[in-house]
């Protein structure tokens, strides 16, 4: 799969679309972490997750893309918005959303980005994945989950159930511990 690598200078249409979607995702993710309004951060998160779903679609992983839209955009962001409302966060512009160690955090993040991008470019420069056949349809992934990954799937169902019961127990006030 690494014999013939097409040139980087003549990108295909899929690569152009992927790079545009990736730029949208990275840009909106940057706005999530620098915006001064809490609700806007959640809305930029929606855009970031949507762009990532588009990236999955370009990578022929359509089932993962729809699951991303359903669970992340539909459930996780709504949960986060509920959390913002229930903690009575400031709706408008708030100055105290960032802690004092912004510069250290920026240095650490830039160092992480430099190291990761260098390693990744060095390691996968010659890797090429042709996107000719769709491999991520719901049928294929469903049969993969229920043929080869049944045990992790069931364990994960129990984990999700336990986590949500735990969330209910934590957030209810009329359940007391054993005294």
């Amino acid at each position, binding site marked *: 799969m690494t014999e013939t690598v097409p040139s980087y200078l003549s990108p295909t249409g899929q690569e152009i679309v992927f790079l545009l979607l*990736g730029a949208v*995702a990275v840009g909106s993710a940057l706005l*999530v972490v620098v915006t001064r309004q809490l609700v806007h951060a959640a809305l930029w998160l929606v855009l970031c997750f949507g762009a990532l779903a588009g990236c999955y679609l370009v990578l022929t992983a359509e089932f993962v893309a729809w699951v991303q839209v359903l*669970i992340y955009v539909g459930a996780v962001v709504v949960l986060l918005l509920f959390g913002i409302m229930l903690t009575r966060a400031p709706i408008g512009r708030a100055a105290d959303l960032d802690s004092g160690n912004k510069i250290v955090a920026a240095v650490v993040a830039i160092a992480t980005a430099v190291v990761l991008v260098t390693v990744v470019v060095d390691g996968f420069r010659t890797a090429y994945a042709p996107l000719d056949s769709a491999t991520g349809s719901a049928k294929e992934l469903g049969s993969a989950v229920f043929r080869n990954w049944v045990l992790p799937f069931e364990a994960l169902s129990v984990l999700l159930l336990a986590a949500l019961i*735990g969330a209910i127990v*934590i957030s209810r006030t*009329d359940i007391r511990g054993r005294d």
Partner: protein
Amino acid sequence: MHVVYPAIVSALLFSIGVYGVLARRNTILVLMSVELMLNAVNLNLVAFDVWLRDRLHGGQVLTLFVIVIAAAEVGLGLAIVLALYRNRRTVDLDRLRTLAETPPSAADPASAASPTGPDSPAVAGRGRPGGEGGPPAGAAAAPGAGPERVARAEETS
């Protein structure tokens, strides 16, 4: 599709998530940054699954599992944040210094002025009367806390 492109996008997303976790003060924003980091890993998993043409579809199935775990994590995290907000009236990570080794420094006068030791909020959290939600319960639930803390709880409610 060159594998470098999704790998670079995911590396940048991960670093942005690192910045958000380290630089944000609001707990919900930190949770959002953790979601960004999980999504970066998901993009890597999908890209490498497509590149390696895994017959078991390990990468995409693991992506689904990570999405489910992220949903569970957000549910539990928000429950903890709400419990925290009920007890402390704040979700700022800088003020939650109960588990710190040293006593709170002078940089945080609100909690430094508390006359009791750093373990009093834990006791207050355990002995909290149940069934009486709302601000009065939150204020009355901190019997060992200093007058500043109760006053702050009443002014924010």
